[in-house]
């Protein structure tokens, strides 16, 4: 799933990888792949993650991981960092999710009464990146679907999600809802439909698997 998501990154893109699953995408990009990774705390051109022993105390990503620079990296302040996001210079962001609705609504920052650490930069990433992709398990820990007709949790941004990568499938969001486009190796259609909380549009042709 992570490896498959990495193939979404096109040469020349500016990309922000959210905390959690998305961050792992970086390990699947070739060393000479032409891409600029952005982190909202003020760096464009993220290099490999470093262990605490190798780390520079002044060089972290937005999740607090110690990262490195590459030739051409630039540091900037938080206003410039989000100017980049809001003005359309961010080609792609990959985010985690609590819920994704069939109309592309995303909920990933708050579970009232349980989890409310604040939205950080997530709202601006979700609302303003040119393409928003979600990486998530298909269901939550209790087995409930994360893909739903409508979100029940507070929304991060409306209608923003274009594609979802899960452990079971790749699903696109079209004007008419969830479209199944790929299935995980060995996963059947029935299982995916069962785990999805909204109608799933399945093409008549055979689907590729990943």
């Amino acid at each position: 799933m992570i490896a498959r998501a990495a193939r979404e990154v096109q040469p020349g893109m500016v990309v922000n990888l959210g905390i959690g699953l998305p961050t792992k995408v970086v390990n699947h990009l070739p060393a000479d792949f032409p891409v600029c990774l952005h982190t909202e705390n003020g760096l464009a051109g993220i290099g490999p993650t470093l262990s605490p022993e190798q780390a520079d105390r002044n060089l972290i990503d937005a999740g607090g991981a110690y990262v490195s620079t590459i030739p051409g990296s630039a540091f900037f302040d938080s206003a410039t960092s989000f100017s980049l996001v809001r003005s359309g210079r961010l080609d792609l962001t990959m985010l985690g999710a609590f819920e994704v609705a069939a109309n592309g609504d995303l909920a990933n920052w708050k579970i009232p009464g349980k989890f409310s650490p604040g939205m950080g930069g997530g709202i601006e990433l979700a609302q303003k990146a040119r393409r928003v992709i979600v990486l998530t398990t298909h269901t939550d820990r209790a087995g409930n679907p994360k893909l739903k007709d409508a979100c029940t949790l507070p929304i991060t941004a409306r209608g923003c999600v274009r594609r979802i990568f899960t452990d079971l499938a790749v699903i696109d969001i079209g004007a008419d809802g969830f479209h199944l486009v790929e299935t995980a190796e060995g996963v059947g259609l029935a299982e995916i439909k069962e785990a999805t909380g909204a109608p799933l549009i399945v093409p008549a042709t055979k689907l590729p698997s990943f």
Partner: protein
Amino acid sequence: MKLPSKQTSIKEAIAHIKDGDTVMLGGFGVPGTPFVLIHALVKHGARNLTIVKNDANEPDMGVDHLLKSGQVARLVTTHLGLNGHAIKLMNAGEIEVEFNAQGILAERIRAGGAGLGGVLSDIGIGTELAEGKKEIEFGGKTQIIEPALRADVALLHAAQADSFGNLAYVGTAQNFNPLMAMAADRVVAEVESLLPLGELAANDIHTPGVFVDHVTELGELSEEYAVVQR
């Protein structure tokens, strides 16, 4: 003409902070957080403070010392994810927390520093974030008016400075520091090295000294500034 010196002791630099003040603190996680100035503020003892900072650091670090000492009435922030203690205080109603989208907090502070009344933004429209905010139609779109934010005092951390208060940051320690430097009535910077006037290149200064009131050199850096071992 020569540029005046703003070198001050920490005690002197923060002496004017009063109960009820709004205090901005630079930093995103460890980088750029003025740990020594925060300790001095704990010692100083001003209470009922409104703290403006991206995050609340981690338990027993930075902002958390002000939370433990009970000096914070209100926290204007973006994310408390790494500090469970702060979340507990919030949930218990012991501190009031105002969450802002991170880039909007940055713009509100910058607007304060730029002498503006606020900015128009569409971030969060149609979500909980927009609740209670003033919206207007402008340029054919619905926009939220995000009010400018200023503070009585800003406490900053920089890598290098000169005696006029010109500041240079390194790595991701820049974050909110240059914005807060513009947005407070009194700006205090702790710096890792204080260079002779003229040794910071005029083209490479991140915060012009014009915005800074007090600059104070740190001795050896404490453990709080080091790489976090998780």
